[in-house]
């Protein structure tokens, strides 16, 4: 009995294995990488990881194709090494910079593509200092467009990717006006405030980052580099 069952089982297994062909498509092997630069200052443009600017890719050769989106790292670099080799229409979209025209790119092997854009806002001479229980940020704003600045903020998180969308606490200020480049803004987080002291705990490292958001369609905040403190 056992032997029969074994033979039947083996037979079924072999039939099953022979029934399907192995997937014979090539795996995606092309990569697209690069950086997004502030065209004026030639520096990397800081980004958000969550709900930040994205690179939109539309692969050619399909009807009504679903776009793909690549996210930026906080420092403004990006990479996707699992793309199919093909022609794509590429543009960074929904960002913290003046919108740019898409470009057609052949992605094959490792393809580098940098973007040079004009940020909505440059955060000038940012400083973040800690005195006792107060973390204070000072900075000026240089707007590159005439829209209102919606708000400014100092964001804090235990992760270095801190920003408007990733924060444990924040000091924000609504502006809703066009700013004067000569004005120095000051934002302060009091580490001893009731809703802060239990969240930012002594003995750990936290990251602080200055951001400013323009009032434009689908705009994202512009940032200065994050600064860390051991509390």
């Amino acid at each position, binding site marked *: 009995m056992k032997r029969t069952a074994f033979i039947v089982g083996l037979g079924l297994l072999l039939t099953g294995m022979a029934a399907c062909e192995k997937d014979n498509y090539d795996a995606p092997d092309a990569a697209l990488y690069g950086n997004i630069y502030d065209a004026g200052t030639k520096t990397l443009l800081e980004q958000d990881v*969550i709900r930040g600017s994205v690179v939109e890719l539309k692969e050619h050769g399909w009807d*009504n194709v*679903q776009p793909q989106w690549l996210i930026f790292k906080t420092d403004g670099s990006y990479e996707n090494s699992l793309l199919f080799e093909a022609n794509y229409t590429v543009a960074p*979209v*929904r960002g913290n910079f003046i*919108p740019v025209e898409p470009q057609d790119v052949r992605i094959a092997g490792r393809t580098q593509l940098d973007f040079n854009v004009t940020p909505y806002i440059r955060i000038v001479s940012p400083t973040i200092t800690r005195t006792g229980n107060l973390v204070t940020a000072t900075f000026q704003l240089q707007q590159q467009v005439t829209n209102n600045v919606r708000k400014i903020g100092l964001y804090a998180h235990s992760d270095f990717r801190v920003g408007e969308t990733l924060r444990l606490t924040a000091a924000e200020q609504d502006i809703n006006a066009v700013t004067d480049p000569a004005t120095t803004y000051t934002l302060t987080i009091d580490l001893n405030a*009731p*809703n802060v002291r239990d969240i930012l705990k002594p003995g750990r490292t936290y990251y602080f980052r200055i951001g400013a958001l323009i009032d434009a369609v*689908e705009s994202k905040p512009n940032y200065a580099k994050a600064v860390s403190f051991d509390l």
Partner: protein
Amino acid sequence: MQTFPKILTCLLAVMLFSCKSVLDLKPTDKILAEDLFGDPEGVKLYMANLYYQLPMEDFAYFRAGFNQNGGDPNNGGFAPAMVTDEAVHSEFGDFVGDGDFHWWDQGYKLIRDVNLLADAIPTLQIIEADKKKLTGESAFIKAFAYFALAKRYGGVPLIKQTQQYTGDVESLKVPRSTEKATWDYVMELCDQAIDNLEPGDGKSRRVTKYTAAALKSRAALHAASVAKFWSRAPMSGPAVTDKLVGMTAGDAAAYYTACIQASELIINSGAFALYGANPASPEEAAENYRMLFANPNGGDKETILIKGFTLPGNLTGHNYDIWYQPAQSANGWPHPGRMNPTLDLVDLYERYDNPGQSAPVVTTTEGDINDYGGFNAGLHYIQYDSPNDIFKGKDARLWGTAILPGTPWKGTPIIIQAGYVLPNGQAVVRTKAETTINGTTYYTYGAANTSQYSGFDSYGGNNTRTGFSFKKFMNHAAPVMAGWNQSTTDYIEFRYAEVLLNYAEAVVESGTGNAAEAAKALNDIRRRAGHTTAIPLTVANVQRERRVELAFENKRFWDLIRRREFHTEFNNRLLHSILPLQDLRALPATKYIFVRVVVPNSNPKTFPERSYYRYIPGIAGNGLVNNPQY
């Protein structure tokens, strides 16, 4: 020998005619359109099916869609209110997902079904008055369906008649209309329904002229708001360029006017009134408000359309009573207490001694209502004699909507306690413990075992973690049946109070219409809740009133969507709880203190702007342009 060929020829000749219609035989196992629609009873049956398919956001509406009350509808009791600031779930922390709240395939199925009927009406052998009624009802159903599509997807393909398949699939594909054209079509269908339907008495569960007007009032307000507030969260992409989503501020005025006119049709008819319009006391107001939802059929002239949940059982009953009952009355159901109204909502309700203002619950003599840092021995907490004294003097509707700590439900005081403060000033919070002082034992959760209290003990993912249990819509009269689909509380789809609030909002937002009447509408609703001081008609007053009056009627989600407030209201948003603690420092007196905290074990919620519209399913097949960012 010659007769045989003759007979054969004759037989053959007869057979030539006998089988003439062999291919035209009618199937005997299917009802034909003319038979079904030719019989008034058939039309009634067909109509019942169309009503059943209406996308009503009732007790069976959950993330997976409508009519989630068949078989084993186990979704953990995660209600749509839990993706707004009205409530949190006792266990899950989910937020709006891309796949939630869709209604696409079922939407076009209903539209096809109603188109079949609408196309058949002129051929029916029935009297003219009945034809008119059917025409009106069909228009209403179509309007309701396109409204449900437009608020989810923006502009959609408008299929105005039954499509005929002629062998060419491409000819069946209809591109999306603009969002404005879609809303205009909804308005047009509402007008057809209003023109063709009779006034009726509001008691029938079939639609009347006024039901159609109530739909128009609701839909027009949605359209007007999208037009007015689009610029709060503008989008980009092909769908925006083609105007498939989005409208301009200039489009708002016409929709606000449409809302005002439709609402006035109902208000001026005199056929409707608020239930318990002039209560003698806030207590009476609270009980009236609870009664209205516990038994809508006793709602006098307030109800405009009721959806019945007639019988316990698959697709006829619902599950609100099992999921949202406090543990003390769960009657054997293992997972009660899952709708937890938030402190954020409770704070909104006015106090009678400070009309026209939200009244956040003040817990300390220091009075800092923004301190969510937990129990702090350095603060001076106000001691109360009962676990609900802190809410005394707040709007009656709070007491009718939520079970507050220590208030009775089904004859039992519902114990909702998060912990105690020991005589030495140490707080023991949200952990199961007991202490004996002078021979009396005190329990952190207010009683010894899990069937004796209803708050904060998170076993089984049960029990409120906000400090409030749920009352509105719950069946007070009967014990819980611990099984699926056993609740039969009916649902009010349209009620007069909503029409008054739509009217007030349209007047104040548009700056047109009769401001005095709109202010009266607002204050009539407040009067029914026991308020005696009139407040002015302002945007803020109307919105607060809307939130407290219509709480848990699945309106808040769409209010946040249409007013484009979701992404600002929910930007790293944490919701809040109140912890009722027994203060053992006060012994031998029994005293309670309250601590405002962030909802325990919860994460911040952020609304992605693409969620203002749902994605269009299956664009590779139907060839439609998808919504932004999908």
